[in-house]
């Protein structure tokens, strides 16, 4: 923080993001020189909340950490429990789970687009496009209702697989719907991309290059063998920033996650960079990556559905209640999501840890904004799509791990 006469401080309550946060930006002559991203949502403490509970309860509980990436939490959690119990879902269950996760990802990306539209479209066109995007979002939402049992917090995600196998008819219906969805989405995407080029607020993002180290474990699902969780360190915000913080930043309700003590970017761009050779370097490329993901995810869902056998079970009905440790790594819409569980002698949860993608990405929002006009500073967090409900429910991972 530079303290001289030219430096101004701007405190902005962020709207149009998932959750409650304040962005404090220091600027010299209207150009951002430093920033602090401060989560304001209260800490609900899900890791503490689930201690002593039955795993079945915990999956339902952690899905309610977040109303945006509910399925992602459900999947990471079921993976962790299965790992701890030494069971694994049948083929159908794996395929369905991946499909449910991807629909959730599409849902999330479309929701984010809705939040972003006011930065792209002029006032007179905004309402029409917002309604259009929401309608498309509703389509994805309906699909999750069919495959997952509900559009929010899908109850079919259970330990051991997915509770219900869709019938032939349902699979055909979803495939048809996806095709229609894709047509509409491609049209919308083209329009948004074109309009973005004209938007004075988006323009600086198109030009600003910011491309930190990327981290991802899988293109579609998540792979616990592609990451070493012991290299992740979760620290308090003050500890990460150090030095002289603005008073409000000390009240931050989110933590920061580091990989091998370095900051890394996770999320759509990281996944595409690592597994698809995507090399967009600008901040706007974060959004383009999201668009690309929706399209390849639709294809992947179709591939997954094709392989489902409607006459086969989708879950192993056998849960083993025993002591154990488990790890679930999943590529949530916003990036790497990690659930770790320890079960006691009765198979109940004795310890639970969650690391969410927003904890990795907060540093980039603060660094990425440097050099941009402070008038559009709020766009940088928004383009990174933070998820505060998730980020405020994490606990410090033991330092000796």
């Amino acid at each position, binding site marked *: 923080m530079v303290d001289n006469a030219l430096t101004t401080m701007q405190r902005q309550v962020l709207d149009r993001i998932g959750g*409650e946060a304040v962005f404090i930006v220091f600027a010299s002559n209207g150009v951002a020189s430093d920033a602090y991203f401060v989560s304001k949502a209260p*800490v609900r403490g899900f890791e503490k909340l689930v201690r002593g*509970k039955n795993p079945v309860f915990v999956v339902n509980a952690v899905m309610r950490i*977040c*109303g945006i990436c509910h399925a992602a939490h459900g999947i990471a959690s079921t993976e962790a429990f299965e790992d701890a119990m030494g069971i694994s879902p049948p083929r159908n269950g794996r395929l369905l789970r991946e499909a449910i996760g991807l629909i959730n990802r599409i849902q999330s990306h479309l929701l984010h687009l809705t939040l972003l539209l*006011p930065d792209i479209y002029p006032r007179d066109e905004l309402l029409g496009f917002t309604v259009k995007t929401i309608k498309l979002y509703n389509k994805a939402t309906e699909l999750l209702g069919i495959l997952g049992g509900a559009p*929010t917090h899908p109850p079919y995600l259970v330990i051991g697989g997915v509770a219900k196998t869709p019938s032939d008819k349902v699979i055909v219906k979803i495939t048809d719907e996806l095709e229609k969805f894709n047509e509409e989405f491609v049209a919308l995407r083209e329009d948004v991309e074109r309009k973005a080029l004209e938007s004075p607020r988006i323009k600086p993002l198109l030009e600003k290059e910011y491309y930190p180290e990327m981290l991802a474990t899988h293109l579609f699902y998540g792979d616990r063998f592609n990451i070493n969780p012991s290299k992740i360190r979760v620290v308090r915000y003050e500890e990460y920033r150090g030095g002289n913080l603005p008073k409000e930043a000390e009240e931050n309700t989110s933590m920061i996650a580091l990989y091998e003590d370095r900051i890394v970017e996770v999320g759509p761009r990281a996944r595409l960079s690592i597994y698809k050779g995507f090399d967009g370097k600008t901040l706007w490329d974060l959004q383009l990556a999201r668009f690309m993901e929706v399209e390849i995810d639709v294809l992947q869902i179709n591939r997954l559905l094709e392989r489902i056998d409607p006459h086969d079970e989708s879950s192993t009905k056998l849960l083993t209640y025993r002591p154990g440790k488990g790890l679930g790594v999943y590529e949530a819409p916003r990036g790497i999501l990690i659930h770790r569980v320890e079960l006691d002698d009765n198979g109940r949860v004795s310890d639970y840890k969650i690391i969410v993608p927003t904890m990795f990405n907060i540093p980039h929002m603060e660094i990425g904004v440097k050099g941009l006009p402070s008038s559009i500073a709020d766009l940088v967090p928004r383009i990174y799509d933070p998820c505060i409900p998730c980020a405020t429910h994490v606990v410090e991972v033991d330092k000796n791990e």
Partner: protein
Amino acid sequence: MSKPTILIYDLGGCEGCPLSIMRVYPQLINIADVYTKCLGKVDLDREYDYAVVTGPICINSPKHVEELKKIRKNSRVLIAYGSCASVGGIILYARGGQEPRPEHRVYAPISRVVRVDYAIPGCPPAPQMLISLLNCIRRGKGYFLDLFRAVALNPKLSGFDLMDEVVLNGLCVGCGACVLSCPTNALQMIDNRPDLIPEKCIRCGTCTVRCPRFSQILIQRSRLLQKASSLSRISGV
């Protein structure tokens, strides 16, 4: 006549409820002027006809308590929307002690802090719910409005309470409404009576307001409560 104004505000829940509301945004804008953080800035200092509050209130967060009080003061009708805001839901299990804010210990339905006009359980309620509710409030009476008002006065509602008040009390007739009202399939019919699978109940309260018996008990009980409170006002207690 100009459209009524409606504020949609999340106090620190999972955001599932405001997002479910967003799905009916295309319809909602036809009947109200909508103010939500999802689509732009909101101003808590201005007055609203309706305020729809989602998420639980963290008793240990003065900022959120202040905000809630301000919303109450500035709104004509306050609606606690979704399980966390109306009955507490999953977050009642919170026990605090978590980094980085271990002092955030106790969460409660918002009716524990301010007067609430209508409380709607559901995790989350289906999008259409809000539209129906606003239409009904305009008409001003009816069993279901009484019911949602009663929930605001008596927020202790969950699958466990359904069991205690109705099933174990011998009042259940076995209609099956509750099993069709559980988002986690925590209720099953055994010998024509619902039975709770305790580890699946997330305390969303949906089954209780769907139960014909419990809903009636709630309404009658809230009448007694209101009578008692008006009596105590008269006698200056």
